[in-house]
């Protein structure tokens, strides 16, 4: 029995069952994210590898720096992060795509949600780990802008991938523009959602995650 083991078990003692359930949901979603990324690596699907690694880094950072598995991101955020990757790699999704016209729009929207989530995590974690400071309007603007900009780079990346490696992501200009339109809609929607998110989250739940939003701590001043 080393010192470390006792510290590790102490994280679990005194947890409410709902806290444990939430954390477990988040861990499962992160495992989905992890194995989907491994799959993307094996398939040499470069864009999705980049996406997966970025999402995993943002997920792991609070857990590692605070050495506490309960600092895992809220499960709903983790699910939003892993959803588009899962939709992308699963074979069931491909047959759905052929069967339903709206399936493609759904995956585009899921992708927009996950990009917005990454943008939001950036605003939170940049403030936690660097000396970047934002106020609320700026953070919301950043989330929407990040979603749009990232999807723009994404489309260009898919195009280059098609050209260089002969993949088949983009069929037509219409295709690309519809995806971008959905990311615009999804980005603005998530801007509103994340504007409210930390405000309406119960204090207890917020403190479990240890997500600090500096614009909530109004005392901060430059200098």
């Amino acid at each position, binding site marked *: 029995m080393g010192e470390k083991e006792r510290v590790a078990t102490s994280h679990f003692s005194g947890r409410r069952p709902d806290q444990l359930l939430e954390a477990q949901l988040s861990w499962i979603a992160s495992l989905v994210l992890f194995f989907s990324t491994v799959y993307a690596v094996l398939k040499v699907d470069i864009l999705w590898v980049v996406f997966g690694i970025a999402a995993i880094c943002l997920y792991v950072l609070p857990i590692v720096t605070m050495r506490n598995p309960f600092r895992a991101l809220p499960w709903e955020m983790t699910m939003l992060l892993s959803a588009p990757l899962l939709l992308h790699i699963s074979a069931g999704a491909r047959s759905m795509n052929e069967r339903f016209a709206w399936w493609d729009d759904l995956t585009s929207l899921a992708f927009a949600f996950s990009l917005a989530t990454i943008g939001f995590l950036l605003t939170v974690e*940049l403030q936690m780990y660097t000396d970047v400071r*934002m106020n609320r309007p700026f953070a919301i603007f950043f989330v929407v*802008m990040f979603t*749009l900009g*990232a999807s723009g780079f994404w*489309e260009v990346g898919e*195009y280059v991938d098609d050209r260089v490696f002969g993949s088949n992501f983009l069929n037509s200009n219409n295709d690309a*523009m519809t995806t971008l339109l959905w990311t*615009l809609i999804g980005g603005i929607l998530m801007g509103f959602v994340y504007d409210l998110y930390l405000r309406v989250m119960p204090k207890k739940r917020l403190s479990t995650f240890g997500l600090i939003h500096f614009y909530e701590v109004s005392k901060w001043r430059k200098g």
Partner: protein
Amino acid sequence: MEERLKLASRAMQAGMLSIAVAGLVTANYTWLPASVLSLFISVIPSILRRDLDLVLPVELNFWIVFALFLHVIGGFSGFYDNVPGWDHLTHAMSASLIAALGFVVVVSVDKYVESIHLPQPFLALFIIMFTMAFGVLWELMEFSNDQLTGSRLQYDLNDTMVDMMFDAFGGFIVGIAGAHYLARTTPEHFVDSLRAEGAKEKISRFLEKRARSKGGK
């Protein structure tokens, strides 16, 4: 150098004016609205300077006029159709222009808003994403225009994607150059050189005056 840039800006403005006049005289109205609008945008910095005492860097001023001039002369002389890559050139120009204006705004925000602090690497990231986001909005605008009015602003996938690559290119150049520039001068010095302090005071004095005259009624 500064004088030469100013002279070149004036020459290009004269060029745009003559294009507008020529269009009017020859009843060739296709590019008349664009040239008049561009001419108007190109004098905005001068208006800002006169009314608010806000001074944009000469290089930026020149860049604004240059981008507008290329757009107008390209349309008027048919370069968009005849010169390969003209479209991409103007895209890179206007993207870098948007990036530069975004840079000016965001550095000013960093200085004047108490609850915002943006270190240089983040500024570079911000500018790059901002420019790309603007490029995406632009393409979406072209796309919806095509869908709604049946115009053909977008040719095909290749064209759109190369446009967006040039947008990204413009954003990268300005983002990195801007961070480099600030590393040498400090944001405070840069904002001071804009004389934004005076402009801020003028605006707040104007708003106060208006509030007072409203209250008086």
